Every structure is written in C-alpha cells, then in structure tokens.
C-alpha cells in the first residue's frame, strides 16, 4: 500500500504546487490545502502502515501487543492537521482582506512591494 | 419540552453514550446536562406535552412501511432506462402549528421517497414539497395530510 500511497503523496504535492503556481489567489489557497494533505500523508506513512490495529490499549490489558499502528506519527499528524487548520483560516482571512484592499485576485497585480 | 425533562433525557443520553447505567453516572450526566442547558438556555424556550407511546409506535410503523414501498418505486425509476416520474412542486396546506409539529412533518415527508420538503411558507400555513410522482397532485397532498400529518399531530398533541 505504501507504494500506492507514495504516488498519492507525489500526486498531491504536484497538484498542490501546480495550483500555487496559478495567478489566482483562490487557486493558491486550494493549492496550500492540497500541499498540507500531502505533507500529512507523508508524515503518516513515516511509521509504516499497519492495517486496523489502532494504538489503543484493550480494556482488559495493560499494554498492547504488536503489531499496532505507530502512535507517534499519528500524534504528529494530528498536530500538523490542527495547525494547518489554523493556518488555512488565517490564509483565508488574508486573501479575503487582500482582495478587498487590492481589488483583484490576480497575483500578478501584487508586485508593488517587490520591483 | 420541559427543561427538567430534557435534563433527565440528557442524563440518560449520557449514560447511554457511556454504556453504563449506574446512579453515579446518572448524577454526573444530570449535572453535565444542567451545565449544558444553562449555557443553552435559549434552546429550551417552549413546553411540549407528553407523548403517547403507542402513537409513536404507530407513526414508526407507518413510516417504515412508506419508506420501503416508495423506495422500491424510486429504485425502479433510477435503475431502469428512461423515467416514469412526473415531478412537480406542490403546496400542501398545513394544520400543524408548532415548530416541532412542522419540523416532524416536514422531515417525515422528506424521508419517504417520492416527496421532498422544500420550504415552509413565511406564514407557516403551507408546506412546499417536491414530489416525484405528481401525476395527481391532490392525491399526494391528501396522502400527506391524512397519512403523516394526522399521525404526527396525534403523537405531538
């Protein structure tokens, strides 16, 4: 499955990046979303994949017998997911404000601070 | 619904969620429910009468029957080429008055295949539904009024 997921991850990275390379900030934000899915999945696969053995200690036991899914990447991904929620919300507010202030969603119109 | 009753219901729901019916669990659930209701005070603005259990059961049976019969009809239409349906939007006059009555009626009509509640008029006297088989609008309306509405009012009043 990891082989399949590897291609999914790559595909998500590619799709996310492609969207971010568009001129519209709307697409930019969608691209960011895809990118964070990719990163989360990648992180998730870091511990290896174990089917249907969540890291939960059974009620009648003090420990859990392997194999079980590695809880560490899960905790990390959970953190990353929640963070990316915060970030996405902020990014949304940002592009909303930007669109209101600048009057366009075209990234090419947003070069005044460089040049 | 009486807030106290609601509170007890919440306490029971709590026990159910935990899957352990004990007194202490009930007490905690009750306390939690109280806190939640305190924060959600506006939710419990009205009072509702107690229900009659057999009417509920009757409604349930009727509902399941309708559900299955009509599902087959839709399934047939969905799975065969071409359509036999004659859809239309119907205005069904309402006898139901309270929020709960209207909601329940609307939900039940929506859940039975063939009819889907679209809206309630601003004066709350008309229910607009989308019916897939509206060859005879009057019949559809009648079936709703005499099938569901009567039973719903019977349960809730």
């Amino acid at each position, binding site marked *: *499955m990891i082989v399949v*997921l590897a291609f999914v991850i790559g595909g998500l990275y590619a799709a996310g990046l492609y969207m971010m390379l568009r001129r519209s900030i709307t697409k930019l934000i969608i691209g960011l979303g895809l990118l964070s899915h990719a990163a989360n999945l990648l992180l998730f696969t870091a511990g290896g994949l174990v089917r249907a053995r969540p890291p939960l200690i059974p009620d009648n036991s003090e420990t859990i017998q392997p194999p079980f899914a590695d809880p560490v990447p899960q905790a990390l991904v959970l953190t990353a997911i929640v963070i990316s929620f915060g970030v996405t919300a902020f990014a949304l507010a940002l592009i909303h404000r930007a669109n209101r202030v600048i009057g366009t969603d075209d990234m090419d119109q947003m070069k005044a601070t460089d040049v | 619904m009486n807030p106290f009753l609601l509170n007890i219901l919440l306490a029971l729901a709590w026990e159910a969620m935990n899957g352990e019916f004990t007194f202490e669990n009930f007490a905690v659930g009750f306390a939690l429910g109280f806190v939640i209701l305190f924060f959600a005070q506006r939710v419990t603005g009205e009072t509702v009468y107690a229900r009659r259990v057999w009417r509920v059961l009757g409604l349930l049976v009727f509902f399941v029957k309708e559900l299955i019969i009509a599902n087959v009809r839709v399934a047939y239409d969905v799975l065969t080429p071409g359509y036999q349906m004659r859809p239309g939007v119907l205005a069904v006059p309402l006898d139901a008055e309270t929020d709960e009555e209207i909601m329940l009626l609307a939900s039940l009509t929506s859940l039975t295949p063939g009819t889907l509640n679209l809206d309630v008029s601003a004066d709350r006297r008309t229910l607009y539904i989308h019916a897939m088989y509206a060859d005879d609008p009057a019949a559809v309306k009648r079936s709703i009024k005499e099938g569901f509405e009567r039973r719903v009012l019977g349960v809730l009043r």
Partner: protein
Amino acid sequence: MTTGILSIFALAFLAPVICRFARGHTGWLLALLPATLTIYFATRIGLVAHGERITERLAWVPSLGVELTFYLDGLSLLFALLICGIGALVLIYAGAYLKGREQLGRFYLYLLLFMGAMLGLVLAGNLLLLFVFWELTSISSFLLIGFEHKKAEARRAALQALLITGGGGLALLAGLVLLGQISGGYDVPELLAGGDAVRASTLYLPALLLVLAGAFTKSAQFPFHFWLPGAMQAPTPVSAYLHSATMVKAGVYLLARLASVLGGTDEWFYIVTSVGAATMVAGGVLAFFQTDLKLILAYSTVSALGTLVMLEGLSTDHAARAMVVFLFAHALYKGALFMVAGAIDHETGTRDVTRLGGLRRVMPVTAVAAVIAGVSLAGFGPVFSFIGKELLNEAVLLAEGTARGVLVPFTILGSALFVAVACAAALRPFFGELKETPKGAHEAPAAMWLGPVILAALGLVVGLAPALVAGSLVAPAVASVLGRSEPVELALWHGFNAALLMSVIAAVAGALLFRFRERLRGGTAWSRNLFAFPARGYELSLTWLHRAAAMATRVLQSGYLRSYLTIIVLTTVGLVGYTLLTRAYTPLNFAAAREVRFYEVGVAALILLAALVAVRSRTRLGAVASLGVVGYCVALIFILFGAPDLALTQFLIETLTVILLVLVLHRLPPLALIARAPARARDLVVALLFGGTMTALVLVAWGVPFQQQASNFYAERSYTEAHGRNIVNVILVDFRGLDTLGEITVLSVAAIGVYALLKLRPPEAKRGAAVVNDLSARRRESSPDGELAEVVARAPEGEVS
C-alpha cells in the same frame, strides 16, 4: 603610550563640550594634549636611539588575537612625533581658520579621532590592533572630508575615499590575518623577528598582495591615487594633516613597518618599485596641470608618496635612508605648504594660482614660510629636503641593472616636475605683481602663520644641521625599516657626483617646464587624460555595479510569487533529486505492492482523481468540494490504517475548512483561465518534477530499516504510568504535551490573526487614489537612482582628472 592614545580619544569626545565653553580658544586648548605628547615622545628619543624597544601590553580580545599592544621603535617614534607635533600645530591653525563656522565641535571631534587613530596605528604592536586604527582613520577621514556635508562634491569625495580606502582595508585585513596565520600570531615584534619564515611560506605571495592592496589604496598609489585630490573637499587643516603627517602615510608606514618581513623579495621589488615610480610620475604630471593651489599640492603629495613607495621597493640601505629622510622632510614642508595655501585662500578668497601674485607684500610672514617650504618642495637649497633628494638620487643610481635604467629617468622626470610645481604653487603667488583677489588680502593671524613658520623653520634648521636628527631619529627609523641597525650620517653637501648631476638636470628641466607651463597645459591634454583613467574607471565601475545590481535584483526579485516558488521548488528538486539518484538509489521492491486491498487502492485513486478535479475545476465551489473529497478520503486512509483519532480530527477539520473556504471564496472573483498554454505546461513540468521527487523519497524512505523503540515505550507506559489507553491522546497530552501546548498557541494566534485582519480596518483610503500613487511610485522607481545620478553625472571634470 597607551594612556596617551586613549587620552586623545577621550579628548575627542570631550571636544564638542570644550568647544562650547572655550569658543575661540578651543584650538589652543586642545593643542595642549598633542603638544604634551610630542614632548613625551621627544623624551623617548634617547632610549630608542640606544636601540631600546618600548612595548606595552593590555589584553583585549586575546582569543581572536587582538591585543592592546603598543610598540615604540625608531620608525614609530618618528611617526608619533610628526603626528603629535603637526597635530598640535594643525589644531591651533584650525581654531583660527574655522573661526565662527558651525559644527566646530564635531570638527574637533573628528580631527582628534583621526589623530588618535593615526597615533594608534603607528604605535600598534599588534597587527590586528593596527588594522583597528587603520579603519578608524578611514572612518574619521570620511567624516572630515564630508565635513561640508551640504555640498554634493564633499559627499562624493568622502564616499570615494571611503570606498577606496575601505576596500583596501578589507584586503589588508585578509593579508594581516594570513600573515598572522603564517607567523602564528599577530604580535608585531614577534613577526618582525620571523621574517624569513614568512617569506618562505606558500601563503607569502597572497599575503603580500593583499597587504600591498591595503597600503597602495591608503597611500594613494597609482591607480588608486584619484581619491586623494578629492579629499581636498575637507577644510584645509585637515588637508594639511591628511597629506603631511598622516593618513596617506599610513600606507607608507605599513610598508616600512613590514619591509623587514615582506620586503627584499623579487615580488616585492617589482611590484612596489614600479607602482611607486608610476605614482611618482603620474602625481607630478597631474600636479603640473592644476591651477588650484590645494589640488597642486595634493597631486604633488601623490608624487611624493610614489617616491617613498618606490624607495621602499628598492629595499636597500640607501633607499631606506632616503625614504626616512624624504618622509621626514616631506612631512615638514607639505604641512607648511597646505597651511599656507589655506591662509591664502582664507585671506584672498581664491586658490587659483593664475589669479594670485605678489602676496609677499601683504603677507610677509606667510611668504617667508612659503618660500622655505617651496624650496624644500623643489628639493633645493639648504633645507632638509635637499638631503632627501640627494639620497633619493643615490639610491636610484645604486639600483640594479635594468631597474636603474628605468628608474633614473623616472626620478629625474619626477624631480623636474617637483621643481615646476614648487615654482607654481609656492613661489609664484608671492612674487610678481599683486593681483586683484575676491578679498582684500592681508597678513593671516598668528595662529595661522605659526604652524607654517615652525615647520618651515624646522626644515631649514634640520637641513643646516642634519646631525641633530641623523643619529637620534633617522638612524633608529632606518634600523626599523631594515630590521637591523645601520649607522646614518647626513650632510647637506656631498660633493659633485652623479646624484647632484641628476638634481641639476631636474632643476633645469623643471625651470623650463615652469616657463612653458601655459603652452604645455594647453597642448597636452592627452597626458592629463592618461592618468585620469583610473578615476573614470572608478566611476564606471560604480555605475556598472549599480546597473548589474539593479538588473540582478530585478531578475531575482521579480515580484511574481510563482517565480519565487518555482525557484524554491526547482532548488529542492535539483538538490534532493540529484542526491537521491547518485547516493541513495535503491532498487524498489514492488513485490510488497501486491498485498494491497482493492478498496484501499480505490480510496487512493479517488484522492488523486479529486485532486485532479480540484486542479481542473473552473468553478470555485467545484474546487473546494473536490478539496473536501480529498480530505474525506485522507480520513478514510486514516481509518483503514488504524488511526481513528486522526480520522475524526481530519474529518471535523476538513468540514470546518470547507465551510470557511466557501464563506470566503464566494467574495472573491470567479476563477478564470488566465495563464497561456506554455506557462501552464512549464508549471506542470515543475509540479510533476516536485511530485515525482516526493514519491521517490517516500519509496526510498520506506526501504530504510526502522526501529519502533519509541512506540514500544509508549505502549508499555501509556496505561501503567500515564493512565490512558489511547496512546495517541496520551502522547498529545502527556508524552509530548509540549507540542500540544505550542500547537494550541499557534491556533490561538491564527484565530487572533483572522479576527484582527477582518475587524481591524485601515483608515478608509480611496482605492483609486491609492492605485494612482502606487503607479507613480513604480514609475519613479524605474528612473535612475538619485544619488547615483548625482555621483556619476555631476562629476566635474577638472577635479578628478
């Protein structure tokens, strides 16, 4: 010694305060300190002449090799005396010259800083300490040259000086560090003792070149000579100081200091001598064509510096002797001449020699000083400078074979130009008929003639009785240069010899040059331009630098986010992909791929499909909904592989995100297909490269053996010690609670950001107006840079060429 140097710095910072109280007497008051120091150093003459070396050490930054070490030997003593002595005179002179000017306090501050830095430089017994003072002289002279800061020319000259000497300084630093590394330390006495090892080192040549770059720029050697005349923008007392005793001689000092370490090799000889000789002639020629008194003196200084450097390059006993005497004499007469020039300017209102004449009648005292100094400049008469000239000629005549053949005519030409210049600058204004000048000329105040008179008199006295300094000052200095002591005897008259013949030829030629100066000035513009090209080069390179920088910056900092992203991603792909292929390639094991369940593949395929649809979607909602599907399917993956917490979180968050997306995107313009096909294809390639790299990474990482040490630990302790059965949650709130603490803070900040962005409104600006302003701002930005235009376009030809 240490106290003396530090006290000058202390006085510098007190100067503005003193200036406020002492007013007109500030110059006299401040001169007390350098005068005292002059006396102090004079008392050391005896000791040093007996071959003693005085060293004082204080720790500063020993771990970097920077120590407050001061070292007094013959060479540094001579310089210290000149710096303090002339410094005192210049302070007195400045008090009168600048009377009533604004910012006088700052002027004294800079001047004293400069003096302190210069004194520190010559006394430094640690290479890095020397560099510290070296840079301080650059900075303080920058501040002094730009003293008339409202004048663009002054600023430009200051910048020029700073860049040239600063650049040289950086080279010097590298050179000194290399020297330090060769010799194992930065202590000057130790370095002086280990010259052989240095010259034998493979790093000798780079170190030499770097040190020379520093010295040549500082001492205005060709082709770096052009900044020095520019420094004329400084008030005259500064010019006097700069040119006579100090800053420009810092390079000469450095070469003399290091001559016994770096000198004596072929590289040293060819480079130093030829640069010096070229500078000598170039300076002379340029001086000859000037009519501004200060510029004439400035270029003649360049010429003199060239002479000194040439002598240093020769590395012979004679040359060392000639160098020390010439340097001493030059300090005396050039200081006097600059003060005279200042006095003339001050009294008459002009420095144009063609408009000056007959001043001896109205400024008799000044005239006496000027004539003595002028004679010294010409290298004639019973003055110290004549001895120097003779020694110079001797040294050149004693040079080896071909070198002699080149150097002798060069020296004669240089001397002839000196004569012509002396006539033009020192003698001509005082003789002949009194000419009309902007101000009615009369004698300068005592404070202004005191300096020139003392210096000129000293030149005369020492010239008549050279024994006064031969053993006490010159011999120890020569010993320092040579690295061994060598008896020195000086006499005014050496009898008729080849050296005298050279002087005579030079005198005659010089007189002729002076006679036909007008015609020559008119007819030989080419020779002027011949030596002007370095100045042009400086300006051109500055312009090119700006152009190149502007272009590079415009290309890199294009303003297009996607080009930034493309560059970043291609960097990643290039680095990671290349390394992956070359160093981490492992044949992939696809056998394991067979134990895949079809619904897993189904979910995976749906993710890709949904991503594709999100990319291709023409509607905002379609894209958002597809993104949602990606998220839901990712949640399904989590469910399939034992991560219920993750699945729940992912699903909850995906839904909330979709809601927020819908809320916001609806206010944005509809999606439009703007990019052209080639752009899309290019981006597609970039994106696919990136995706492919990440896929490869995951596949390779998967093959790396893995230990589940941590998860086993958590599995064992989660319930028994942390009282939780959900290991993921226990990790979040206990094992790795700190992550969570940080994370909720991130969330808090993000939410505040959302709130602030949407609720905090900028003061309502009219959008149209803002756009217009912005456009005009952009247009302005594309016009050439302001100050650069000032620097490049308005360079007055006469001044730099």
